[in-house]
């Protein structure tokens, strides 16, 4: 009944928007806000009042990598959402926000089979830490028309890479598809064979953090030799983004 007092509600709303409510009180107040229109309105009014104080803060341009990361995450979510709405299949189970989690689960299973000693890791802690996706490297590769073809992910401190085909891929007339990492300041290096359908997991020679920290771009090429020294004809490409 305490919350029947409009003055108290207004004070709590002010503290909530300002950020001075203690964490437990903040969580309680968020629940109250969900249930009561008057509380929601009190919060909106304080957001409007305090939001006006932000006009004196000078704008600052962040690094372009921020948008690259946002774009990779939101486009991947949009594609997963579209696929789950259109076709159903297994993605219906995970909804729109859990692509990274699925990759993480696949990575954990593969890691458990390949190297059980590594299974207890910070990656898993991150993976189960709530709504936030685990810290990962993610690439969304598209063809020249911008159609999504391949989703690549690997946990930041893991060695397992997952590749999932998200759009139809025609087999090359000759040769096979290879995924390459393109660092900002060095030669491209091959990460492994790219699948034509479904998804695959493979073990990287080192952790993603060590291999991909400076990688800005991923490409898939058509190769006719078993171990090519440099990328051949590029068929798909996309940015490599860090999810943290």
């Amino acid at each position, binding site marked *: 009944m305490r919350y029947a007092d409009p003055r108290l509600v207004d*004070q709590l709303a*002010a503290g909530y*928007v*300002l*950020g*001075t409510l*203690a*964490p437990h009180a903040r969580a309680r107040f968020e629940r109250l806000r969900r249930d009561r*229109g*008057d509380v*929601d*309105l009190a919060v*909106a*009014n304080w*957001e*409007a*009042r*305090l*939001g*006006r*104080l*932000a*006009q*004196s*803060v*000078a*704008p*600052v*341009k*962040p*690094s372009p*990598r*921020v*948008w690259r*990361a*946002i*774009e990779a*995450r*939101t*486009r991947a*979510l*949009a594609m997963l*959402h*579209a696929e789950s709405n259109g076709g159903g299949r297994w993605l219906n189970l995970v909804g*729109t*926000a859990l692509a990274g989690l699925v990759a993480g689960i696949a990575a954990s299973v593969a890691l458990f089979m390949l190297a059980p000693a590594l299974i207890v890791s910070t990656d898993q802690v991150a993976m189960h830490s709530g709504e*936030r996706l685990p810290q990962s490297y993610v690439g969304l590769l598209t063809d020249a028309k911008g159609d999504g073809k391949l989703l690549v992910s690997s946990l930041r401190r893991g060695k397992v890479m997952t590749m999932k085909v998200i759009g139809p891929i025609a087999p090359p007339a000759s040769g096979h598809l290879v995924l390459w990492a393109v660092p900002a300041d060095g030669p491209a290096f091959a990460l492994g064979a790219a699948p034509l359908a479904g998804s695959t997991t493979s073990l990287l020679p080192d952790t993603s953090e060590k291999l991909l920290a400076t990688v800005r771009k991923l490409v898939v090429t058509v190769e006719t030799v078993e171990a090519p020294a440099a990328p051949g004809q590029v068929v798909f490409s996309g940015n490599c983004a860090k999810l*943290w």
Partner: protein
Amino acid sequence: MNPDSARLQELLALTARGDHAAFAEVYDRTHAHLFGIALRMLGGEHVAEDVLQEAFVSIWKAAALYRSRIEGQEIQPMTWLIAIVRNKALDALRVRTRRKETELPDPDDSADDGNTHAAIAPGALELLQQATQALQIQDCMNALDGSHRQSLALAYYQGLSHSEVAAQMGAPLGSVKAWIRRGLDKLKTCLAAQGAVP
């Protein structure tokens, strides 16, 4: 509603329907201001970039939750976006505080730790003065004691908790809570007198 706000409303409505180009335009129009706010609160570029990224992923997922009116009260889209960024920044600040209290420092955070709040200019109080001047409520707000304005400014622009404001100002916690309360009450009164927000 000004043309910028009207356009942002349209863009958020399109974003809610999955239009990624509209979402990109929301980012183009707002990211520098929102990043400035996050940077001011967090003090380090890397952590501010993380917060901006999390905020925009939330905006993409939750654009449908933006309401232009609540109980008849108009809600500017920029107000909604600022609230999302500030809440993400507050979460990051509280996690950082908890980590500092309980754990050894994470080496990944070391680059940001060098940029303390105090190193950022202008100061919080100066930002408050600039904002109140722009809002034409400076005289009204100046009726407050300087320590009241200072504590409100530290809490708003730097996201400090009551106890952090008390430590920074070297003042008793109870006094700081009262100063911030009075500062908020005064802000509400001054803005209402301007007819800005009820």
